[in-house]
């Protein structure tokens, strides 16, 4: 059905004659009985009003008075309730329902893409804004808070925080997707907005909840879990609310705000050493480096460096489903190739294994924090034998415990140790990014369900 545009709005016709009161009453009852979207009800009411004008005029031309002509015209159309029911059924075809669903999903997908970009932009602006504020205006208080609440600092660090940030952007995407999907589905399917809203809210909420809880593996902590769980709620709220935010800011104010933000950003960047150039190399701060290595020595003494570097240089890993899956030993080029000094040095070791140690932050310098084994523990959290095939390590597996909600146990450092020629166990890697990259910090990675059930 092509909708009437403004120029064709039948209600604006100058030729219209007012309808008798009983006809208006009839049209009111007809409209009330139509279980269809508003724009369709308006069209039907206009069409039926036209019909009444023609019908009454024709009946009057047959000699009846106006009042009787109106009653006769009404009688010919029959009960408004029955007519409304027939018209409603006529519009609600299965084809329109399917088309509405398909069109809604398509537009919801488009909305999700656009909403994700918008959400990322909002999160980025919020982060920059908070960085500006905390970096320039509130920095001393935040440092005080950070120093007082190390758990908070740990929660804000690492990959789980990235999961949370993306989840926040996904909330914006879900909200916009639901709104677009509902709007298009309502228009095409000819079902009432209330019906479509409920359907979309229930279906979308259930679907996204299943996806978020069971199907999306990601680095997790309590913050990321709560953020991911917010996505289905954002979708449902987008489907159920009819509120449309209208943001109309004067262009001058937007430009002024942008300039102020830019100035503050530059000021912030200039004032924060970590942001004003390449990150300081821990190796360039001998005291901090030495202090960190002393902490590592609690794991095992380091084997003598080969060419100034540890035997193993790169690696990375994940924890998930209560199982350590650590792949270490992606050898880079040069001296770390399989026939290089690193490999030859490794050949001297026996009983090579991974050791997962609980990690805590280590303030290497005022703006750089690294990870060290938690001094509260004298043994690794878990160990797993390393499968070294002269080229690289295969995945290792070790059952671990997991304390849900505990920030401290969501971060580990994974070391590789081995028994050297003298029969002593040595540390073969140093999890420092400046010594070959790939600090072996691991976060719990898995679905929310795995996060919730790990260790139970």
């Amino acid at each position, binding site marked *: *059905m092509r909708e009437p545009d403004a120029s*064709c709005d039948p209600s604006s*016709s100058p030729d219209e004659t007012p309808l008798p009161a009983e006809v208006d009453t009839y049209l009111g009852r007809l409209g009330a009985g139509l279980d269809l979207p508003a724009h369709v009800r308006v*069209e039907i009411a*206009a*069409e039926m009003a036209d*019909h009444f004008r023609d019908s009454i005029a024709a009946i009057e031309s047959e000699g009846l008075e106006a009042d009787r002509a109106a009653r006769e015209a009404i009688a010919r159309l029959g009960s408004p309730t029955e007519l409304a029911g027939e*018209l409603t059924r006529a519009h609600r075809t299965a*084809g329109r329902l399917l088309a509405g669903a398909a069109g809604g999903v398509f537009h919801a997908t488009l909305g999700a893409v656009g909403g994700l970009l918008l959400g990322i932009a909002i999160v980025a602006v919020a982060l920059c804004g908070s960085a500006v504020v905390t970096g320039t205006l509130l920095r001393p208080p935040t440092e005080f808070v950070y120093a007082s609440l190390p758990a908070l600092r740990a929660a804000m660090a690492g990959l789980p925080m990235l999961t949370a940030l993306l989840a926040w952007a996904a909330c914006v995407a879900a909200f916009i997707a639901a709104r677009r999907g509902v709007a298009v589905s309502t228009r095409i399917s000819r079902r009432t907005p209330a019906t479509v809203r409920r359907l979309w809210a229930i279906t979308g909420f259930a679907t996204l909840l299943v996806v978020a809880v069971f199907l999306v593996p990601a680095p997790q902590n309590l913050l990321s879990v709560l953020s991911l769980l917010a996505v289905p709620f954002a979708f449902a709220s987008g489907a159920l609310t009819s509120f449309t935010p209208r943001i109309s800011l004067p262009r001058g104010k937007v430009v002024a705000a942008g300039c102020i933000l830019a100035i503050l950003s530059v000021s912030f960047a200039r004032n924060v050493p970590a942001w004003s150039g390449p990150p300081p190399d821990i190796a360039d701060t001998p005291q901090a480096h030495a202090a960190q290595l002393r902490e590592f020595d609690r794991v095992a003494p380091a084997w003598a460096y080969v060419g100034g570097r540890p035997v193993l240089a790169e690696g990375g890993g994940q924890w998930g489903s209560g199982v350590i899956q650590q792949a270490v030993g992606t050898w880079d080029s040069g001296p770390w190739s399989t026939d290089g000094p690193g490999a030859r040095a490794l050949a001297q070791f026996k009983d090579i294994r991974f050791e997962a140690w609980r990690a805590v932050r280590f303030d290497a310098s005022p703006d750089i924090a690294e990870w060290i084994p938690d001094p509260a523990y004298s043994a690794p959290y878990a160990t797993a034998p390393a499968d070294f095939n002269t080229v690289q390590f295969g995945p290792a597996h070790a059952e671990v415990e997991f304390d849900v909600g505990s920030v401290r146990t969501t971060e580990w450092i994974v070391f590789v140790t081995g028994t050297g020629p003298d029969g002593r166990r040595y540390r073969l890697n140093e999890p420092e990014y400046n010594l070959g990259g790939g600090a072996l910090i691991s976060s719990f990675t898995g679905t929310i369900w795995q996060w919730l059930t790990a260790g139970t």
Partner: protein
Amino acid sequence: MRRPSIRTQLLKGTTPLLVLTVLRDTELYGYEIAQRIRERSGGAFAPSEGSLYPALHALEAEGALQADWRESDRGPKRRYYRLTDKGGDLLAEHEAEWASFARGVARTVAGPTDA
């Protein structure tokens, strides 16, 4: 209880066919469609106005008709209906079905014929 007449029952079932037929070569609005059917039948019958509009909207939902709001030559803006290609095909189907049905009814009513 009053029994509905054969005409009423037939009209109810044949309204889509009648609508498609009068729209075969022209565009009409709702009231005109009813009048055109009445004229073509020589005043013998016209579809119930209460069933005409649901039939029009159902045919439109089915894709057999397309409706547009536009100015009328003789009055206010009207909602004009016209046949689509799909409507043309549907009309052909209805016509064939009706012809077969009408022949069968006629033969039945006429009674058995001698071989």
